[in-house]
């Protein structure tokens, strides 16, 4: 009897405005469904018949998926989504762009970028979901560039350096090839998230404070 009551109190203790989850993190059915759908979305973005930007330049859209997953699912589920995606790649499902898969992509020079996706989605989520207010476009953009590009490079470049036997500086130089397309993807992801915030706010599964409302934290601090 007592334990039931204690559980009820804990459930009622959740707040609506802040990240509305109890302190010990339990994956509920909706979380599982959202992670599953975003893993599949990553796979769908890597299907052959690539996308193009500016009319003709073909790109792989999976890093775009990393940015979207972090921004929409938030840091923890975003990172979890990448872990599940990479686990399925490792068991041999051809989910990477162009139908690639298998454990061999974790010994390839590009392996670090894949691991960087986990940290990348986490950081994108942390930045976009940083405050209780609806994120402004500039904050989304910072999240995409820092999490979706810089963090991925920060993991990818050292691993590539280790595997290829080149110095960090040399790899960073070779890495410059990816920068223009990654910036395009970050810009696209920022526009997409900004549009989604207006067109389908339910996607984010949280209540944002409107910009004019006072921040509850500062109000209680003033009292």
């Amino acid at each position, binding site marked *: 009897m007592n334990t039931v009551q204690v559980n009820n109190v804990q459930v009622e203790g959740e707040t609506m405005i802040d990240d509305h989850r109890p302190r*010990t993190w339990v*994956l*509920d*059915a*909706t979380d*599982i*469904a*959202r*992670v*599953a*759908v*975003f*893993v*599949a*979305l990553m*796979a*769908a973005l890597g299907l052959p*018949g690539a*996308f*193009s930007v500016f*009319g003709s330049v073909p*790109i792989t*859209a999976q890093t*775009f998926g990393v940015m*979207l997953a972090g921004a*929409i699912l938030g840091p923890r589920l975003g990172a*979890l989504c990448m872990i*599940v995606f990479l*686990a*399925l790649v*490792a*068991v*041999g*499902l*051809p989910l990477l762009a162009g139908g*690639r*898969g*298998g*454990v*061999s992509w*974790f*010994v*390839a*020079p*590009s392996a670090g970028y894949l691991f960087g996706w986990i940290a990348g989605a986490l950081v994108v989520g942390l930045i976009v979901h940083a405050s209780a207010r609806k994120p402004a476009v500039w904050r989304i953009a910072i999240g995409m560039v820092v999490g979706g590009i810089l963090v991925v490079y920060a993991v990818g470049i050292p691993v590539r350096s280790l*595997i*290829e*036997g*080149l110095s960090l500086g040399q*790899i960073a130089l*070779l890495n410059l090839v990816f920068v223009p397309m990654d910036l395009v993807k970050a810009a*696209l992801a920022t*526009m*997409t998230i900004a*549009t*989604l915030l207006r*067109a*389908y706010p*339910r*996607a984010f599964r949280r209540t944002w404070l409107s910009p004019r409302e006072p921040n509850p934290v500062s109000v209680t601090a003033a009292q």
Partner: protein
Amino acid sequence: MLTLYRPGDGPWHRLTAGRKSAVLGLIVLGVSVVPASWWGAALTAGVCLACYAVRGAGMGALVRQGIAIRWILAVTLAGQLLFLGAETGVANTVRICAAVVISGLLALTTPVSELLEALERGLSPLARLRVDPQRAALTIAVTLSTLPVLVRLEREVREAQNARGGGRSLRLFAIPFLVVSLKHADALGDALTARGVR
């Protein structure tokens, strides 16, 4: 769903997933410590050929793997030749490609179901990190069944986009695809809850 597995009955197919991973891991490790020289490159290429020369793998599979990694090969070789010169550059490239191609034997000769079972067995230590292994296994199972659904949704959104003359633009594709996918996620979450998953 199409997988990388090719059925057969060679020695690689007969090994269990765990042992095969260990053997391939050791070979890849061995290949990575071969000195970067012409004879080292030849030795590495020889090991790679030997791994594929057995029944159940074959040279056709090796060629297909080579085609799959052509971009890694080109990008790595360019960078290596630019900074390290011919001998070290070529040897490093051969070593990297051999590691990728040799480890590719795991996916080529092991059914995904067997590797998934190994993965789910490997989840049990997660309990120590306060992650419920059963919940993790459920997440993987739900994800596997969601993959074909999203592929279908992707095709539908793309066809609708083509019908309106949208071309292959990622910008026009992203929003409708996300909304459709997230609605599916809501429905899937409700369906899981209705079946007693909390």
